[in-house]
């Protein structure tokens, strides 16, 4: 675990490397995640972003929210971007052509850029062992292009390419277990986090930067625009995601799964685990599921959440 300790006041005073003034929607979960993660920087840092909401809202030329060096190249390239930066830093330092003792490299990418089009570059980059932190900000659809489904969209959700129609009730497929896939790559650090539990999130981000080799941080980040949810409720929805075990918080150091405190309490006191319905109700993307004919989908979602939770408990050596 990181040695980093701070009070809320001290944290508030860390530099704003992702500055305000960007054009994200009100209540944007990913924007909160990026700001918090950048505040966890421990020193010189270079960031890269794949194409998507966060790239678009933060860098409309000639403006930028980035008080650090930052590059965007394409949609599927976040991990390859980081590979090139990290490799260049390594060799230039060896040759004495840069002064910095160490520079952290952080790649930000959405669920589209990670579960789908960028998974090849990500898999390759972590297999090669580049020293970087990959942050998946997961708003569960392609938001930048208008709310299309991704491999990270949950079962039952309405999107513009998985519409709730007369015969198909939204997305039929399950969410790809991306973080388990990353653990299976046997990289030093994988964690899930959530903007509602900000301290846990920034500590994990810091740890991901500190670790030698690739680290993967999967951040649950509501998008009011795409989830058809209230802008003031992003944090509340995030908290519900943990309490219902829709998105538990955990980390895996060298492949050892461990529940984070917010999810551990539920493991220890199963009566605290809330039914998913309360979570689904907060978001318009699930509204169609509350029609009587779609009851079976709600049940299937609950079953799936329970199954994954049991599997996670097993991985953590609890069940």
């Amino acid at each position, binding site marked *: 675990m990181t040695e980093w300790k701070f009070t809320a006041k001290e944290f508030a005073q860390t530099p704003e490397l992702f500055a305000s003034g960007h054009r994200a929607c009100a209540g944007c979960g990913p924007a909160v995640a990026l700001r918090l993660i950048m505040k966890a920087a421990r020193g*010189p*840092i*270079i960031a*890269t972003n794949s194409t998507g909401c966060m*790239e*678009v809202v933060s*860098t*409309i*030329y*000639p*403006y*930028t929210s*980035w*008080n*650090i*060096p*930052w*590059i*965007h*190249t*394409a949609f*599927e*390239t976040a*991990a*390859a*971007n*980081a*590979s*090139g*930066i990290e*490799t*260049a*830093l*390594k*060799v*230039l330092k*060896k*040759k004495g*052509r*840069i*002064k*910095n003792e160490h*520079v952290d490299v952080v790649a930000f990418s959405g669920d589209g850029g990670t579960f789908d089009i960028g998974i*090849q*570059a990500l*898999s*390759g*980059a972590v*297999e*090669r062992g580049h020293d970087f932190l990959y942050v998946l900000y997961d708003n569960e659809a392609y938001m930048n292009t208008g709310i299309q489904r991704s491999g990270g969209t949950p079962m039952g959700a309405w999107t513009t390419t998985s519409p709730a129609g007369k015969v198909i009730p939204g997305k039929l497929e399950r969410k790809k277990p991306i973080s388990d896939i990353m653990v299976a790559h046997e990289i030093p650090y994988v964690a899930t986090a959530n903007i509602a539990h900000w301290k846990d999130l920034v500590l994990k981000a810091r740890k991901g930067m500190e670790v030698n080799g690739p680290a993967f941080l999967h951040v649950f980040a509501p998008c009011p625009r795409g989830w058809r949810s209230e802008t003031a409720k992003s944090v509340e929805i995030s908290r519900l995601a943990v309490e219902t075990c829709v998105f538990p918080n955990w980390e895996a150091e060298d492949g050892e799964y461990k529940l984070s405190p917010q999810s551990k309490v539920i493991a220890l006191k199963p009566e605290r685990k809330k039914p998913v319905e309360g979570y689904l109700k907060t978001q318009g993307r699930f509204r169609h599921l509350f029609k009587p004919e779609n009851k079976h989908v709600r049940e299937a979602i609950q079953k799936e959440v329970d199954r994954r939770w049991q599997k996670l408990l097993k991985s953590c050596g609890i069940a």
Partner: protein
Amino acid sequence: MAKVEQKTVPLNGDTAVAFAVKQCDVDVVAAYPITPQTIIVEKFSEYVANGEVETEFVCVESEHSAMTCCLTAAATGARTFTATASAGLALMHEMLAVTSGCRAPVVMSVVNRALSAPINIHCDHSDSMAQRDLGWIQIYAENSQEAYDSIIQAFRIAENPEILLPIIVGLDGFVLSHTLENVKVLPTEAVREFVGIRGVPLVMNHRGEMVPFKLDPENPLTIGPLDLYDYYFEHKRQQEEAMRRALEVIKQVHDAYAEQSGRSYGNGLVEPYRLDDAEIATVCIGSTAGTVKTVVDELRDNGIKAGLLRMRAFRPLPVQDIIRCLSGKKAVAVMDRACSFGGNGGPLFHEIRHALYDVPNKPPLANYIYGLGGRDTSPYMIDGIYRDLQKIAETRQIKEGVQFIGLRE
């Protein structure tokens, strides 16, 4: 006369490229194997494994990532190189435009190979011709010696602060890549001195300060932002202007290199061969020029005033050189080792014909598509082209504008 003493070593096109890259003190090589480029990647891996270079070799999982890695490494200030061919180049397509748009001076050798389908590993130029409009300088070598020389020149052209454009050095698959040749190589110190250490110019950041054009924690810069109708157009215009400037810089670097090595290739942009007093001429790219030269010599021996214009630079297109070299000829044939399906002739034909459009004494122009998928192009076939040209010169009439040679009809 060469200024520096050189060694002659047996190299094929691929090993000549790998050796040049080794000498250029490259910081990052990211590459993925594909026939007929594979030898470059293998050879370079050997250099790395044996500690013969101070280069980081990133053995990426795809060409898409190879180009991306080179791009961001270059944006971090590194000198970068990659190599590919055919399907690999096609896979890079998206990132080629991003690389030139980010003004990353990546050097890449393309070992020219036909595009699928049907799959074919042999030479034609369909792979790099398909990348024409992506903002990359394109230089083509006639032999392995020139491939070696061109790679060294490429770093100095690409990294010139007035240019900052990526470069493709094309060499013909198998014909050059796998054929042993005596190549004269410069001493490594001479190469290092010639290419220097990569510098980075200053650019204005979002705060209006002049900062080094790279990802530098001391001087934050946002590279590759969203850029809409209010600025994008100006940025594209800047790329076009850099391409125009490259016409001069390619020549300057070529001349400076010629002074060291004693080797020159025309003016660096085009290489005319027995062209001054020629009445009929062909235009071509790459290794075929070697065959054409022997045919020209034979024709000359028989009193026929034949000549050749070899295009070394395809992008930027040396329009003035084309006009200067071809105006007033009685007949000219453009040889294309690629198709532009549904277009009126091959890609080189389009370029040459368009360059000559405004010239009052422009020659009649015929187009010959040849050698697709590695089909052999014999001196006999090239001789046939010159026979056609003689007829065109006499009659001032072209029977068929675009012809396919060396294939069964």
